[in-house]
């Protein structure tokens, strides 16, 4: 990947996504962690990204997906996870999002890849937790993309 073309902001987002996965106790860094990291940026919050809304939507997606096979998710009051996280590795959903970010930058003729391109890459997913959570939160992805 053309990582050297990532701006300081884009690199910081990738590092923040790793911190998100670590804090959540997840074994892998996924597109959802990129999205949460992006939602911490004031410039993207100004476009309508809302951290609290996204966290809630992702939790709701998890609960709904588990409920569909008869598993009741544990509430936030009874954490099941270990206090000692693993070193999370980049998983396919995050890699695909970054690949789409590179494509988005190329398509726009932008030489550098910044946080907005990463957001475009994350929003470009057709399947997986991110589009499902966005749908639950009733976020108009097309309108959001148009503002980027």
């Amino acid at each position, binding site marked *: 990947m053309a990582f050297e073309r990532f701006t300081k902001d884009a690199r910081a987002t990738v590092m923040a996504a790793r911190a998100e996965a670590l804090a959540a*106790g*997840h*074994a892998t860094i996924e597109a959802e962690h990129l999205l949460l990291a992006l939602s911490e940026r004031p410039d993207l919050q100004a476009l309508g990204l809302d951290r609290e809304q996204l966290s809630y939507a992702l939790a709701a*997606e*998890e609960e709904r*997906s*588990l409920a*569909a*096979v*008869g*598993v*009741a*998710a544990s509430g936030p009051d009874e954490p*099941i*996870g*270990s*206090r*000692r*996280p*693993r*070193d999370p590795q980049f998983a396919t959903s995050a890699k695909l999002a970054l690949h789409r970010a590179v494509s988005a930058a190329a398509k726009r003729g932008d030489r550098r890849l910044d946080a907005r391109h990463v957001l475009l890459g994350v929003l470009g997913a057709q*399947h*997986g*937790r991110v589009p*499902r959570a966005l749908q639950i939160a009733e976020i108009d992805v097309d309108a959001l993309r148009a503002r980027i």
Partner: protein
Amino acid sequence: MVDKRMQLTPPTLPEDPADALAAVGALRRLADQVEDAAVERALHDGWSWTDVAEALGVTRQAVHKKHARRLRGTGVGLRRGAR
């Protein structure tokens, strides 16, 4: 009233493939979190890596590779040769 989740019947496969596949991912994440907590607890309670591996149905090398670094410095897992 019997809790439906406690019955030993297989879960219904969700109608929509997107829901079914999402459930697989959610179950894997849940299993990962349970495994992390369970391995940590077992080692803390004095189980050896070999015992943990047998209980999980994986090789000792596999469980050690997955968890040793994470749990380093907690006083567990230092008895490499322990049975």
